[in-house]
């Protein structure tokens, strides 16, 4: 059967539609609950997907991704508290509308723009597919190794934690990934006599520890619910009409989201802020921004959702995740025995089309399910923290056990939770750690192949054109503080010149 047709059959089967809807609803719940967020929701669900087929697992996880991207804006709009960092900018105009009693109108603008943005992102991925297929094939071990370095450098440069902390986190992740049987000779490394470590540090328990346990300990400080009151709602249909009237903002936001999504590390947060600034600069009435301008919601929301398609480009073609969410999707793919890269375009092409189809379907679900769930989702923000924390902890613990039936993994998760909490409190970027941990084994494999290829003279890879380009890109990314400084100095000079 044609792989495209096969993917459509899977997606539109009873199971496919059911899993997509369940995933989307779970994503909406996680996204709408401040403090839970997309990463934690995905991490909690991954253990359940291990008994599913890879295609069904991807359908449910992409559904979660779509749901989180949409629903993160609901608390932003209704209680001025973003469900995710990428939804922060929506608070400016969304909450202003909610205060006027137009919460539902703002949610409808958000849902419409999110749906169109997600569709744009999915279509972009389809268009990019032949090019990616070619690119993935011309990438050899040295290119993969350098792209991994570029990915880590981009993520570290994009975080505000500083290079020392960023690279420390990334390298610590890669080093911990070497624990267990070696890829080269299967001899155990760094097990310190603990037999449970021979299989390595479990990915699922690490993920849940890093995100769930550390977050629950952090949240437990708050004895109340996130909010006690909700702002007024208003008309849904009016919101859809207002969003469609701002079609130019949606198109611009989608384009920005796709472009930003391509670059590892530059996730939805950067895209939404860029879109907001662009819309404000292009608007005829910029003074209305921050007071409930529809374009201030439509543009950033389209950008936030089109990032999904864009960020999957480096994830699927090179196995380099651009954000925590895509890192978790990559984890799920690898747990199902699917390795991103050239093989995905030849051996697992049905999965690839299922992922793309799920993104497009996520856009449809945003409009249909997302809009109808907006009111009950808003109520989730009033669940008291003392109720939420023990329930999430129990689900996490049983979920880890369900994934492997190995109790030692629960203790691994507790250790990862301590590490995650330290990272959170001391501002070490968790995404850099996760990137190092996930990509570490792949990087080691490619490093050893490159080592053998060049007989230890690693600098010889710089004579390969793609490697040279990637190396220069890595340097440019690492020089980001210098670029920022130069641009700011130039801007100051221009401003001073005008005022003089």
């Amino acid at each position: 059967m044609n792989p495209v047709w096969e993917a459509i059959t899977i997606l539109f089967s009873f199971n496919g539609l059911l899993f997509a809807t369940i995933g989307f609803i779970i994503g909406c719940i996680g996204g709408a609950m401040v403090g839970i967020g997309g990463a934690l929701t995905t991490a909690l669900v991954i253990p359940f997907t291990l008994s599913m087929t890879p295609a069904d697992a991807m359908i449910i996880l992409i559904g979660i991704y779509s749901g989180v991207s949409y629903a993160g804006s609901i608390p932003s709009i209704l209680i001025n508290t973003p469900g995710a960092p990428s939804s922060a900018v929506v608070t400016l105009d969304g909450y202003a509308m909610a205060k006027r009693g137009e919460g539902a109108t703002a949610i409808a603008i958000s849902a419409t723009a999110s749906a169109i943005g997600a569709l744009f992102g999915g279509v972009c991925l389809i268009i990019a597919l032949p090019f990616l297929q070619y690119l993935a094939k011309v990438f050899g071990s040295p290119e993969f190794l350098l792209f991994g370095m570029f990915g880590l450098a981009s993520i570290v440069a994009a975080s505000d934690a500083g290079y020392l902390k960023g690279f420390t986190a990334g390298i610590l992740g890669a080093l911990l990934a070497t624990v267990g049987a070696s890829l080269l000779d299967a001899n155990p490394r760094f097990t310190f006599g603990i037999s449970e470590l021979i299989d390595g540090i479990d990915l699922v328990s690490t993920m849940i520890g890093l995100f769930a346990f550390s977050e629950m300990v952090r949240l437990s400080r708050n004895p109340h619910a996130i909010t006690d009151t909700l702002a007024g709602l208003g008309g849904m249909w009016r919101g859809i009409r207002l969003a469609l009237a701002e079609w130019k903002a949606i198109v611009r936001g989608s384009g920005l989201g796709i472009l930003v999504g391509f670059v590892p590390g530059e996730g939805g947060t950067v895209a939404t802020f860029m879109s907001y600034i662009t819309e404000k600069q292009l608007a005829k009435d910029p003074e209305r921004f921050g007071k409930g301008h529809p374009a201030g919601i439509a543009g950033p929301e389209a950008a936030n959702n089109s990032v999904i398609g864009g960020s999957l480009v480096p994830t699927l073609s090179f196995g380099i995740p651009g954000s925590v969410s895509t890192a978790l999707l990559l984890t799920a793919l690898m747990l199902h025995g699917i390795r991103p890269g050239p093989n995905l375009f030849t051996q697992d092409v049905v999965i690839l089309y299922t992922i793309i189809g799920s993104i497009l379907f996520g856009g449809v679900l945003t409009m249909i399910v997302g809009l109808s769930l907006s009111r009950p989702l808003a109520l989730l923000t009033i669940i008291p923290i003392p109720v939420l924390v023990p329930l999430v902890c129990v689900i996490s613990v049983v979920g880890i056990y369900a994934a492997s039936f190995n109790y030692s993994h629960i203790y691994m998760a507790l250790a990862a939770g301590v590490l995650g909490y330290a990272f959170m409190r001391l501002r070490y970027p968790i995404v850099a750690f996760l990137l190092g941990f996930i990509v570490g084994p792949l990087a080691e494999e490619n490093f050893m192949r490159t080592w053998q290829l060049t007989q230890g003279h690693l600098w010889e890879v710089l004579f390969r054109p793609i490697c040279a380009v990637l190396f220069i890109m890595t340097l440019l990314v690492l020089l980001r503080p210098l670029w920022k400084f130069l641009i700011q100095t130039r801007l100051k000079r221009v401003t001073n010149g005008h005022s003089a």
Partner: protein
Amino acid sequence: MNGQVEQVHDVPEDDESPASDTSIGGIGFAALVTIAGIVFLIQSLQIQSQAGIWPRILAIALVLLAGAQTISAVVQRLKQASLRSFEVPSSRRLFTAAWLLAYCAAAQWVGFGVAMLAFVPVYMVVMGYRRPLWILLITAGFAVGITFVFDTVANVPVWSSRL
């Protein structure tokens, strides 16, 4: 120098904001990572095959980076102040961490379900949730929920002891 002494707080007053790199926690964590890097480096030097090359490179990089972080934090701290306070995380957070650990230890012997029947309501009460009927309903409803999702659907022995 004006003779004034700036006080360094290890945990800022707003507990939600990140702790300073120059705090005891910040320095301690960086030092711990450096020590971990040294341990990995020593272990990797004992691997005679090519399997030791990659971890060796990573361990050296980790020691250099985390070491630099530790040294710069210590130097900054010495420059900043002589009066220091040390605050431990809030009691609510410590209780959450300790209670979670107790749950994990207990669940291994009595099963996830039985341990949960104590873990969830006690946590809610200790954390200040004062609605007995809701505590009962939430615990019972959650027990039914995890039994259905894990025991029935995913075949995880939620109520079996000695996992």
